């Protein structure tokens, strides 16, 4: 609760997100509190509509205009939830980067992959374009892609390549925290595993903090240090990953584990 604990950690306290559109209000997140330590991997698990994506998007302040956000999202003594769009721009990508849900449409179609990376580098780190290109090639290689792919346009890449490129883009400014929203859902099972392994390897290697949002509890349990299970906008259960998946206290958590297991059996 105090600011000293914030150092190297994103702390979320009593976060509520309420969507207001056309006179109807939907409370997507209802008073959730959790933290993402630097160097730790936190899994946020729940079915679709449980509010996990809303919680993730609330951290860098990317919810649609007109959405009511209450509570604190603090990092290094700053409450991000109170910042204006211009002030948030300094935090986004330099400190907190995003790996989007199924990176299909997350690239601007008329820019090459390399241009996406050099744009971020030149804006945040004032890196000249030429140096940026070399850095972009390095980044793509770390994410398991060939450097020359940076000359390609988004529509020329496959789904798995796009997801890796999104990861390379997220790493461009060496952020402290990575927020990954279902980073592998749109991919086939084998590519899923490869991409996820790459993410984990990089995050562990660089000591970054990762918030992994997924509906797949067993998968998250295999990766994360800590698990948070969300249901209807509230935290149903949280704790060390092994404890939550191995000895679930809540019926809902059991349900999630069983659902995935049954699907695996069916496969």
């Amino acid at each position, binding site marked *: 609760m105090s600011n000293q604990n914030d150092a190297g950690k994103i702390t979320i306290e009593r976060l509520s997100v309420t969507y207001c559109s*056309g006179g109807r209000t939907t409370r997507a997140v209802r008073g959730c509190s959790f933290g993402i330590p630097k160097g730790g991997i936190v899994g946020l698990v729940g079915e679709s509509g449980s509010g996990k994506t809303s919680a993730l998007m609330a951290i860098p302040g990317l919810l649609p205009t007109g959405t009511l956000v209450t509570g604190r999202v603090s990092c290094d003594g700053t409450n991000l939830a109170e910042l204006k769009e211009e002030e948030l721009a300094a935090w986004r990508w330099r400190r907190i980067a995003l790996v989007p849900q199924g990176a299909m449409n997350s690239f601007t179609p008329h820019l090459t992959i390399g241009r996406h990376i050099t744009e971020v580098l030149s804006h945040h780190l004032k890196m000249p374009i030429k140096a940026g290109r070399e850095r972009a090639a390095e980044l793509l290689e770390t994410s398991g892609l060939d450097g020359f792919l940076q000359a390609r346009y988004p529509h020329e890449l496959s789904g798995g390549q796009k997801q890796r490129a999104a990861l390379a883009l997220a790493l461009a400014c060496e952020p402290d925290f990575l927020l990954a929203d279902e980073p592998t859902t749109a991919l086939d099972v084998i590519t899923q595993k490869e991409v996820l392994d790459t993410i984990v390897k990089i995050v562990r290697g660089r000591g970054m903090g990762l918030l992994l949002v997924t509906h797949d509890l067993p998968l998250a349990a295999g990766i994360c240090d800590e698990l948070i299970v969300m249901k209807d906008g509230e935290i149903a259960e949280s704790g060390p990953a092994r404890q939550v998946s191995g000895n679930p206290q809540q019926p809902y958590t059991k349900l999630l584990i069983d659902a995935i297991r049954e699907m695996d059996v069916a496969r």
Partner: protein
Amino acid sequence: MKKAEKIKNAKRLMSVLSLALLAALAAIGSTPLGLKDGQVAPPYSKPHWLDSKVASTIELRVSSSDGDSAALSWVYSPPLRVWLTGTLGAGSAVRWDTPSGDFTLTREPGEIDLDFRDIPFKRALGISPFHDMAHALFPSRGEYALSLAGSGDAVMRIEGGRWGLLGTDHRGRDVAALFVMGLRVSLIVGIAATLIATLLGLSLGLLSGYAGGLTDALIMRAVDVLLSIPTLPILMVIAGIWGKDLWSLVVILSIFSWMGTARTVRAMTLSLRDSSWVEGLRAIGAPRGYILFRHLVPETLPLLLANVALGVPGSILAEAGLSFLGLSDPRLPSWGRMLHDAHMFGAFTSGAWWSILPAGIGISFICLIFMDIGHKLEEMADPRLAALTKRKTIEETS
């Protein structure tokens, strides 16, 4: 947001009602409304409600059968022109009583046809030829009377510079009458040309989509070409060569506006042709004509209806444009023609805005109405679009 929904519906209702009203007006025509075509008043007479200092055109009638005098209370500035016509029996006289003195206008037997600007007439009344008769005969406000002593009949026509609901144009024709006739032309041309164009587009689109191959390629290239040629110059040239009557205009307009419909119908036909139920029909041996006219045409009909409504403004505007350029039948009053006349014969250097505004507003208003109805029909025809708006209204209402 029930209120927004209500306003929207009210607007739609207004559009439909206005269209019905205008159609009724066009159907009735100008004559039953008591509007006369041809010259009725001096050129560029003001609308009746505009300037109360100026007299309307008034006709005073006297005859030996219905008494012998017609009274007039005059509160206006002197009139522009005065005429006296009729026949007079022997030994009769027509007299004009003014507050400041009486005149005997004529005592010549036989036909009377007197223009009050005629010099002999002025002389006969003892007024200088250089003096304005109107000032002499209408010296002040007050009670005037035209009277006939003896037998015969006479009509005194006093033209004051005010006429009717909307004034007159450069030839002294009633703008309100022209407006109603122009409305008729616009509706006929707009709807007829669009209907023909839609039928053309429907058949070519069906042919293109269903036949495929070379036919399809040819028709679609023709669409591309026609869409990238400026149509107005062609229409001008054709109208100049072919003649300018109403129905050739309709034909010309429809020849150059079927392309959009053909594209839409082709796209729909393509998607339907490959759909499983049409394939099923083919599999059970349904003839091509049956599939086309019993299944594909009805499927495209709702969208076509919307296309018609959305196409009408284009035809109306094209007709108005051609008429404005003077490429329509000069005897047929249309809104474009009215604006053409206003432009050619200096309506605004005479300050006669009333001969510009009605036609222009008429065209704009009728186009807006058709657009509005067209959008509504489109929403109804395209379930995806409709679902989208419905969802939006649910969001707004709940």
